[in-house]
């Protein structure tokens, strides 16, 4: 028998965790001598008050959807992929190679190729930790952390020594050619008399991210492979008994996870920067952890959580612009969300379970 109704598990617990994180964040803002109500107002107008704000919010949300889905898929196989950051960096490398070294007649074909390139590179970066976990039993968390650092050093090497154009001091690739520039929301939705999303980086990758959410949902809940992944995550011995190979599932789940993290690069590298720079990921790989935890590893939950973090990111940038609150406030909020929805989950869950049990006894 379930201790709680399903809606409480899916909606009530994340909501309470979020409220706790919000209360603590408000206390932090108070403690540094600012007004939390004004801060929230500024964030809402800055991130949601104009199409420009929305353009940034949705741009960040696109990044977080990809990295959140990546962490979520690994969670379903009961693995913790902290390597999203490194996988996204390598995805950027894949996108840069596709865009720079091949001539594309049209952006749409280039986008397809970039999706494949970024997914391949991201999956490749996840493949080694996955193999080591499956075959040699090396803990995936430690190896993916190490691979983040190795990815940073590798990217640094590639940008400084290999891909930097002649005569440039900047550790970055050349700009991508005009033909592979992705359509932004501005060019897609603006009319002659009414300019929308002006100057905002949101672009067509947002719809690719939405599609990825649907595909991941179908994969996890509507295919045999998804069933095997969930079964393995639920109970390894049970899965083995049912004839599911742990090695195969571990590697496949991590490859999908790495590919999703890598695909983030079509948004930030191809869609926004239009060249590969150092630290292009800006920690989005780690925010994926918070997004997946908050979204309860469900693609729809990941979508909502990614929107929330997109709002926080753009709102935080506006705060840093207009008040003396630095951008790092968002890092604190992110930490609190991870803490309450992840590590302190039982703190919220146990009293609620008791409450529902006593309610049920009262009803009988």
């Amino acid at each position, binding site marked *: 028998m379930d201790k709680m109704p399903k809606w409480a598990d899916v909606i009530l617990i994340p909501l309470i965790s979020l409220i706790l994180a919000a209360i603590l964040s408000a206390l932090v803002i108070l403690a*540094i001598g600012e007004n939390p109500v004004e801060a929230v107002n500024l964030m809402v107008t800055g991130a949601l008050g104009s199409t420009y704000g929305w353009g940034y919010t949705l741009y960040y949300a696109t990044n977080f959807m990809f990295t959140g889905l990546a962490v979520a898929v690994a969670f379903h196989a009961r693995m913790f992929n902290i390597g999203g950051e490194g996988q996204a960096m390598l995805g950027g490398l894949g996108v840069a190679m596709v865009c720079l070294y091949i001539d594309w007649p049209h952006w749409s074909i280039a986008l397809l190729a970039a999706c494949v390139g970024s997914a391949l590179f991201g999956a490749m970066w996840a493949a080694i930790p996955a193999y080591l976990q499956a075959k040699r039993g090396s*803990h995936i968390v430690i190896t993916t952390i190490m691979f983040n650092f190795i990815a940073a050093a590798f990217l640094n090497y590639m940008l400084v020594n290999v891909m930097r154009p002649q005569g440039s001091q900047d550790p970055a690739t050349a700009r991508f050619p005009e033909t592979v520039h992705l359509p932004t929301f501005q060019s897609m939705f603006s009319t002659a008399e009414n300019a929308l999303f002006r100057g905002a980086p949101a672009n067509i990758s947002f719809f690719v991210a939405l599609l990825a959410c649907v595909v991941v949902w179908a994969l996890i809940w509507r295919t045999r492979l998804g069933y095997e992944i969930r079964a393995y995550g639920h109970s390894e011995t049970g899965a083995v008994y049912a004839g599911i190979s742990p090695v195969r599932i571990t590697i496949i789940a991590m490859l999908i996870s790495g590919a999703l993290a890598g695909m983030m690069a079509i948004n930030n590298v191809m869609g926004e920067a239009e060249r590969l720079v150092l630290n292009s990921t800006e920690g989005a790989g780690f925010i994926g952890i918070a997004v997946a935890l908050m979204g309860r590893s469900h693609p729809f939950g990941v979508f909502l959580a990614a929107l929330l973090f997109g709002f926080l990111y753009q709102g935080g940038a506006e705060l840093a612009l207009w008040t003396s609150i630095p951008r790092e406030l968002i890092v604190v909020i992110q*930490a609190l969300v991870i803490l309450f929805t992840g*590590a302190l989950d039982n703190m919220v869950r146990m009293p609620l379970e008791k409450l529902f049990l006593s309610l049920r006894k009262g009803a009988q």
Partner: protein
Amino acid sequence: MEFFVTLIQVLDSTIRLATPLLLACLAGLYSERAGIFDIGLEGKMLMAAFFSAAVAAVTGSVWLGLLAGIGASLILSALHGVASITFRGNQLISGVAINFLASGLTVLIAQSWFQQGGRTPSLFGGGRFEPINFPFADALSGVPIIGPIYSELLSGHSILVYVAFLMVPATWWILYRTRFGLRLRAVGENPAAVDTAGVSVVGLRFAAVAICGVLCGIAGAYLATALQAGFVKEMTAGRGFIALAALIFAKWRPWHAMWACLLFGLLQAVALRFQNIDLGGVVIPVQVMDALPYILTVVILAGFVGKAIPPRAGGEPYVKER
């Protein structure tokens, strides 16, 4: 002779760079030997670095700074303990949260306290740990070979360096020669047996996490008040993770931890001093030196060069049967 001078200088810098790694590595050793994985070493060091520099800058006393650093690190340790021992949460997720908490809070507090863009004022005089000169260090420095080794390599470090290296035999003795150490190791391998013997698993694990907090606090204070003069944003720069790598490299043993930290310290010192290294035509780029600790750890983890087996109950919350 020039080669010898360079060698001494690189080794001297190795010792200084290995010290924070060693302190954090031993911190992780206590925690993980008791069965609590800790990937939050980085965050605890960062928090300690900030509070030690801030308090040292305000009071002018580096010792008060050290205490503040240890205190700040202990608070994060307590959070990790409550999340992973009391509420039996995921230790890895808790560690990730602690790293972000420290990374955000330090800049936030530094900005509202000092308004210098997330750094503390520079420390000078009593606000820093001064080097300790051994007796006759100056007199002996002219003696060939032994002179530079004694007066430059061994003498002239801050007290925390000597504390860090003395912690190695101390940790060995505590772990392998005391009752507390035996129980600590047992609780990381088989907590049920410890519980059956009537010893509190929760108490032991909290003790281990607290020791971890104190050592991370010293490591952070060393970074901000001895190695450098003040706190800057993200000044730990991945040292907590290199320490974690060293811990795995050492297979959770104190003496090996020291050698691993010295090796990783040497890599950092070489990368600092030489940019790209030319070995008879083959150029080793500096990025390889940066990545080498992580690559070595992956190789060790993969079990190609001796297998690293973590404490058996590591990462598992202990649930008493009812």
